[in-house]
């Protein structure tokens, strides 16, 4: 098991370097961000000044060396608009995003897993179709629209919940629902197919031979095994949540890193965007690593190998 952890760690580091390199080159090779940031009446002198300010002068190789050097000190550039180190801006907002992500994941699981089990138990009939439709609805509705719809119904028309900004528990409700909605389908489908496979197993037959009640057979024996593949996708799901947060935080004016990303895009704040992407990569890769280790621990066949 220890070898596995070390191996995964190395993999993560390699991946991170790859991502950072890609971000670096993608940003500089596909066009000049300077041109998009300058107003139309900028003079060549203004342009040169900006290029210098962004560190875009010098050869690509020089730039890369400086970039790597700075990065190893935790310096990923400064946001143009906010005039502060990008890393600082990111970490000041990160807790706000981390406040809603676990709730969204929890919501998606509480809705998706039972739906998946019910669909698997009723395979082929109307209930299965209905559960499937509910799940697909979560994917078909763009989350930005769902958020706006929820705001309209619960904030504007009914006045029950606030329409945005951070605050007490009532501020969490709508953003969490919006963020978690599209994951419900993912969980449901996964659990459904996993359950269907597990229900055919011989050990399920043995459980029935023991005379255990149907609910114990399903919820204890089947589900435990069915959830193992779900665990492997947790990392991917959380990654989806982090990117989904970009839209959700924008809609609800939630001061997290998602909104930060949006602002970087809207204001063409290239250094900030570059830094945010790399930091998010670290976050996502870290979470994936954690999930992989968790999975190795949970499945006794791997833990005790």
């Amino acid at each position: 098991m220890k070898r596995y952890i070390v191996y995964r760690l190395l993999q993560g580091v390699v991946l991170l370097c790859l991502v950072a390199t890609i971000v670096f080159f993608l940003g500089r090779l596909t066009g000049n961000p300077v041109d998009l940031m300058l107003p139309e009446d900028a003079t060549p002198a203004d342009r040169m000044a900006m290029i210098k300010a962004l560190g875009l002068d010098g050869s690509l190789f020089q730039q890369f060396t400086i970039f790597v050097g700075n990065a190893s000190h935790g310096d990923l550039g400064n946001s143009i608009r906010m005039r502060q180190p990008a890393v600082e801006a990111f970490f000041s907002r990160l807790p706000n995003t981390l406040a809603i992500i676990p709730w969204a994941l929890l919501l998606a699981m509480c809705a998706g897993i039972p739906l998946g089990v019910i669909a698997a138990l009723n395979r082929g009939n109307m209930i299965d179709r209905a559960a499937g439709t509910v799940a697909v609805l979560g994917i078909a509705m763009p989350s930005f629209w769902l958020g706006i719809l929820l705001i309209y119904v619960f904030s504007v028309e009914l006045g029950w919940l606030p329409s945005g900004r951070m605050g007490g528990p009532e501020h969490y409700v709508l953003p969490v629902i919006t963020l978690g909605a599209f994951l419900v389908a993912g969980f449901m489908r996964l659990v459904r197919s996993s359950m269907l496979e597990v229900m055919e197993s011989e050990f399920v037959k043995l459980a029935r031979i023991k005379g255990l009640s149907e609910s114990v057979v399903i919820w204890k024996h089947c589900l435990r095994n069915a959830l193992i593949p779900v665990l492997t996708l947790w990392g991917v799901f959380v990654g989806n949540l982090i990117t989904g947060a970009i839209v959700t935080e924008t809609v609800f004016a939630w001061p997290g890193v998602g909104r930060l990303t949006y602002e970087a895009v809207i204001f063409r704040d290239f250094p900030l965007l570059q830094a945010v992407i790399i930091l998010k990569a670290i976050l996502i890769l870290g979470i994936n690593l954690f999930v992989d280790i968790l999975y190795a621990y949970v499945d006794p066949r791997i833990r005790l190998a």
Partner: protein
Amino acid sequence: MTDAKGDVVLEVRELQTHFFLRRGVVKAVDGVSFTLRRGEVLGLVGESGCGKSLTALSIMRLLPKGGARTIHGQVLLNGDDILTRTPGEMREIRGRKISMILQDPQTSLNPVFTIGDQLREAIFRRSGARNRDVVREAIDALRRVDISAPEQRIGQFPHQMSGGMKQRVVGAISISGHPEVLIADEPTTALDVTIQLQYLKLLQRLQQETGMAILFITHDFGVVARMCDRVAVMYAGRIVECGPVAEVFANPSHPYTQALIASVPKMTGNTRRLYTIEGQPPSLMDLPAGCRFAPRCPHVEERCESAYPPSFTVGREHTADCWRMTAR
């Protein structure tokens, strides 16, 4: 294997289980009848696909999903027809009155629970006793099936054990409820040959200790010779011959039984060629009207193809479903 047995504990009458598929109806179990007495071991022999396992599943009412239904027959457990019991009542019966050992030890145990957990589940149900007692009972159960160091095994996971050991655990789980009837569905087929004999001896010992009746499903006549008191031979969904093992071996009356016994490789006598039965079993969707073995039978007559033969008595408690038996 003593001669005097107890009264009938399980009686199956005209059991029919069919698969209703889009393409047609598969008559997998098509009128199976036999009796099982307390303390005896009845072998159910036949080639793959003849319906043996499905008969067992029909008795346990654990048919696979997807069109299988028991449409006719009675299964009398101590005189009580369990086919009419509600699912809740069946759950009480399973594990306590009737139990089953499955074929493949690699997949019979849940990989994410320790075998201690899985044993305790079975025991707890019966007694509802305290945890300490249940653990002790579990350790005892493992000891009974000849598993060494049971205290350590309790905390182990299935993948940490060999196939033979796993199958013993399955045995322990299955008999933990002290069932009156144990159905063993080819329990040694998936085991190493060297382990097979050990396991059979274990089953014999357990049977003698508990006095339970065993329905032993197998395709191996050698195992039948060793383990069983009586044997029922199954072909294409029906039982074609049934009787005490010694009698059936000495005096096989149905041509299929004769062919099966002839197919067992012998160490003495003419050992040049292996005897095989020509032809294929009939499709269970498309069964002939007469005797189902007729197409492959070396003694086939005209009447064999027109009507299915009834059961003829050919010896003491020995029956065979063959038209040629009318002469006797």
